């Protein structure tokens, strides 16, 4: 058991002490699973960087690879997984460390909050040991001191009657409180980087905002870098500095948040934005739909991976995969041959509408039948591949 003696103040690090350079720097990270059907490329060349005190939002649907990505970042993968690429934390290369080496970072430098607080807490252990375990194990703090810190942590995440809660079991707490506890556990040793993997998906809507606010507040107070993973674009609006949209294991658009919402380029992102219902629209407005399903990651489509579902798709898109190209605003990159908001894009869309392409009609008019056609086409493709 490795115990680091760390001075009490360092668990709340001060900005002046940080080294220069980004907190986290990821370059061409790839993660693949060996399945009976072949290599499943869950993360296929993702690069990003994050400074301390900033928040990066990662948005994508199920199967986009976003969860695998953040776990790959930390190195929290199972044993039979192939990973390549570079992950640098404060300049130190993490990708060639084994589990023993990574353990020095886990908990104390970087921490993770998981999606479902019911399953990420040990059901047969009380709350107190679940918080104090890492304090005592990683920081070498004695039992009494650890309990005091646990109390302080519970207070700081907004749990009433913390002394009572320490003795409770997880199933005695509500969902929101459980998630607060997992946040307290993650923050216990004062990490500089916090990864939140869909922290609010399993919670009631009313609680979601509270938890997100709590995360934001803790991040500011502790000057942490935070990565917020979600499938819901609404979550990242206003809470992140930068947003990366992932699709089929790749980043398809990345921009500072305001730029992304105001100046979207990639059709998939546009589709996501459009599918959020807005109060300002009249009632019974048809939602714009993206028909079809995410692609098979063992055998992804040639060309752009979104092309089977894309309203703007042209023959080029089906054959040549587009690279990440910069847009006018600095810090904004996207992956598209016929981007939204450009002449080329508009013409492509009109051409598709003229020939009644189902994906285009689904996206523009919210036509359910058209969307179903796209689904059927996706099924046929999948049948052909099997």
């Amino acid at each position, binding site marked *: 058991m490795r115990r680091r003696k760390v001075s009490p103040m360092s668990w709340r690090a001060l900005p002046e002490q940080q080294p220069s350079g980004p907190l986290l720097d990821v370059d061409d990270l790839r993660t693949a699973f060996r399945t009976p059907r072949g290599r499943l490329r869950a993360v296929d060349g993702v690069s990003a960087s994050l400074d301390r005190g900033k928040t990066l939002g990662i948005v994508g649907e199920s199967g986009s690879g976003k969860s695998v990505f953040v776990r790959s970042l930390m190195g929290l993968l199972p044993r*039979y997984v192939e990973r390549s690429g570079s992950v640098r934390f404060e300049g130190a290369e993490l990708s060639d460390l084994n589990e023993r080496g990574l353990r020095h970072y886990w908990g104390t430098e970087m921490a993770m909050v998981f999606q479902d607080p019911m399953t990420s807490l040990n059901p047969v252990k009380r709350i107190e040991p679940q918080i104090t375990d890492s304090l005592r194990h990683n920081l070498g703090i004695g039992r009494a001191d650890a309990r005091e810190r646990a109390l302080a942590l519970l207070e700081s995440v907004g749990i009433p009657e913390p002394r009572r809660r320490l003795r409770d079991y997880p199933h005695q707490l509500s969902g929101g409180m459980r998630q607060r506890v997992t946040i307290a556990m993650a923050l216990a040793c004062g990490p500089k980087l916090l990864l939140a993997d869909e922290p609010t998906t399993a919670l009631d809507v009313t609680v979601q905002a509270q938890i997100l606010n709590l995360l934001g507040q803790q991040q500011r107070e502790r000057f942490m870098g935070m990565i917020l993973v979600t499938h819901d674009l609404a979550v990242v609006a206003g809470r992140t500095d930068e947003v990366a949209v992932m699709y089929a294991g790749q980043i398809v658009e990345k921009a500072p948040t305001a730029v992304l919402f105001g100046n979207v380029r990639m059709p998939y992102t546009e589709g996501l934005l459009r599918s959020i219902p807005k109060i300002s629209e009249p009632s019974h407005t048809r939602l714009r739909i993206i028909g079809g399903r995410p692609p098979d990651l063992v055998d992804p489509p040639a060309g752009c991976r979104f092309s089977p579902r894309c309203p703007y798709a042209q023959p080029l898109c089906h054959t040549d995969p587009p690279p990440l190209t910069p847009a006018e605003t600095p810090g904004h990159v996207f992956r598209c041959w016929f981007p939204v908001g450009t002449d080329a894009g508009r013409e492509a869309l009109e051409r598709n509408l003229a020939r009644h392409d189902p994906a285009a009609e689904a996206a523009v008019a919210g036509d359910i039948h058209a969307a179903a056609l796209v689904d059927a086409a996706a099924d046929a493709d999948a049948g052909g591949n099997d």
Partner: protein
Amino acid sequence: MATPEGQLLDAASVQVAATNTAPAATGLRGRLLPPALVVIGILALVVAGWGLRSASAGIRILVAVVGGALLWRGLQVLGIRRYGPTFRLGLVAASAWLALVMFLAVFADLLPIEHWTKADISREALGLRPGLRWPEVLGRTTNGYSELSHVIYGARTSLTIGVVAVAVGVLVGIVAGLFAGWYGRVIDGSITIATNTILAFPPLILILAIVAVYGNTVRTLALGLAVLSIPTYTRLMRAQTLAIRQREYVQAADAMGASNSRLMWREVLPNAVLPVLSYSFIVVAVVIVAEGSLSYLGVGVPSPQPSWGGMIAAGQRQMKINPHLVFVPATVMFLTVLSLNRFGEWVRKRVLGGDRSEIR
């Protein structure tokens, strides 16, 4: 985790490395390696057996184990190359051993071995170690009997008892289970209570009690051990009967006016019996162990007649000087029980997993 990615992560965590891989058959090294392993393995075993006489038992055992492992691996790879990826050396070896034992046991009298009553009491013969000579390839006991003969005739006894016990157990148990599952209520209740009564006794105690009352003859042993196996079969058959009663083809036959007994015997029994019977090899193994234990305790197969357990008990006193007296029967017994278990597991898996077609 419910998401597809989550399931992937879960699956990858528990992924067991493929157990039946073989190195590629290409290249000089790939082609030579398995036969080389086989040769080295055999050499190691020979050396352990004859070359290292003077070395301590520990070293000899170590060399033998390593040699055996290499031989095993070599044969396994060769087998996969020859017969395809479903080749399982363990199963093949188990079946071969069982076939050998059964053949020897059945044809014992016709074999060119001494009868077990014949003893060579010349000085060199008493307690002779195993070696490369015939007929005493497995050595002799301190009374001059041929170990080979005693092992073979002992196999005959043990297998006879095992087969008879299981056969009787199967017959009684299946009928009892069928009646219990079919008629239910009182009949089921009383059969269950009777079964639980048998199960209430610790197994060894029960058979000891039976032997105490009826004496230890081969017949008593076989029937007593049959009593031990009846509850297992009864329970299995009862469960199967209960399940099959509900099936549509049974209800259809019933609706067509079939009589109770016809339903039971022609519809339920044929379909229920196969999964139940598939346990039989494993039960035979258990019976052989029980009989061996009894013979070891002195209350099993009666004395002059050879039995594995009895041989072990007799040899135990001189284990330090003449270890072969114990290890020869012990090894044979171990291999037989192991093979029965292995083979029985395969049978079970085949019956339960493969054959889902039912007799209509």
